[in-house]
């Protein structure tokens, strides 16, 4: 137990030293920080963007922003948490910018290509679950990934996304419900037939 605490302390001291060096402009120290954390950042980027190329751009952007904002990092928080926050915010900014230019929706082709990219980047992943994640709406997907995969608490996610804690809880509930519906096999026999169902009166028929 004591040894584990000692190792944690040693790791913290090492991290603080590397951050101090990187702050002073040492790119070698920053490279060590990058090499230690890029996999965690890239996993989040991949699930936020649902696109291999965009994920790599986002990971790159996250570390460039981290370099410029190192003076704002306090060692009380984990560096991974801080980097994830930067990634989430950079992604939101990018999405807002893109939405001005084009309305991008995740098509089934996008989902397929994302699932393959996810399998390549994370060999142990389950492709059906990745497909379900990719099909979720943006807000719900962000919360599900941060909570269920990266293990953040609602308080932390709310701070990262700049929303209320209640919103993240509602989004998680919605995300899980939707994901479950994507994962359940469609049983045609149980589904109410459109032909048999009584047609709803249209606006036209209600008119006198």
């Amino acid at each position, binding site marked *: 137990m004591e040894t584990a605490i000692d190792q944690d302390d040693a790791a913290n*001291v*090492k991290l603080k030293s590397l951050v101090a060096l990187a702050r002073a402009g*040492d790119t070698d120290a920053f490279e060590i920080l990058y090499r230690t954390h890029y996999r965690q950042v890239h996993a989040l980027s991949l699930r936020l963007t649902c696109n291999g190329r965009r994920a790599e751009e986002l990971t*790159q952007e996250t570390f*460039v922003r981290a370099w410029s904002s190192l003076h704002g990092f306090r060692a009380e928080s984990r560096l991974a948490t801080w980097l994830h926050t930067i990634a989430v915010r950079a992604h939101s900014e990018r999405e807002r910018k893109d939405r001005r230019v084009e309305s991008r929706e995740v098509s089934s082709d996008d989902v397929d290509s994302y699932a393959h990219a996810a399998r390549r980047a994370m060999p142990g992943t*389950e492709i059906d679950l990745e497909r379900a994640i990719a099909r979720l709406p943006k807000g719900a997907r962000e919360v599900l990934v941060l909570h269920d995969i990266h293990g953040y*608490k609602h308080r932390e996610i709310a701070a990262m996304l700049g929303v209320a804690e209640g919103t993240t809880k509602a989004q998680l509930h919605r995300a899980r419900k939707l994901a479950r519906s994507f994962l359940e096999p469609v049983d045609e026999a149980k589904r109410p037939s459109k032909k048999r169902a009584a047609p709803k009166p249209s606006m036209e028929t209600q008119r006198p």
Partner: protein
Amino acid sequence: MTIDEKSSPDGRPPGPFSNLPDVAEPSVDLWPAIEGRVGADTPYGLSSVSATDRGGRPLWQRSPWLQAAAAVVLFAAGAASGLGIRREASVPPPSTMNEALALAVDVQRTGSEYIAALAAFTAVVDSLSQDVRGQGTSAAFATLYSAADQLAALNARDPNATSVEMDELNRSERRVRF
């Protein structure tokens, strides 16, 4: 950006998604591109801040004495950063905790020496007669205080930075009283 959350991810909740990997490998090494971008960026650390940051037009343009004072400050800054570059070049990248610690201490010491040199310089200027010091003092103090602020951000307990900041506080209090 100032993001400082004390908490951290602590255990994933049970569920189908909790077994998914939380690390991923990009298809290419992203570091060369990142290095290219951060290398072009201004490095952080001790750098002089323009006098306009403290209000008014650039002080060094106001008198020859002021320009001389600015030249001394620039020389001190250049010497300090030159020392820093030489040390950085002579030491290999930190591969162990001890090396990283030694480098961090080195950076800290260089910054501390820079502050001490500037403090000595401003003390000399401060001791001269009223008509000589003029606005040159302001330029030197502006640089000293901005450097001390940066050093305090690196290490809040650095004795030189603390003493300079206390001095700045006392001076501003005196100005308020007048």
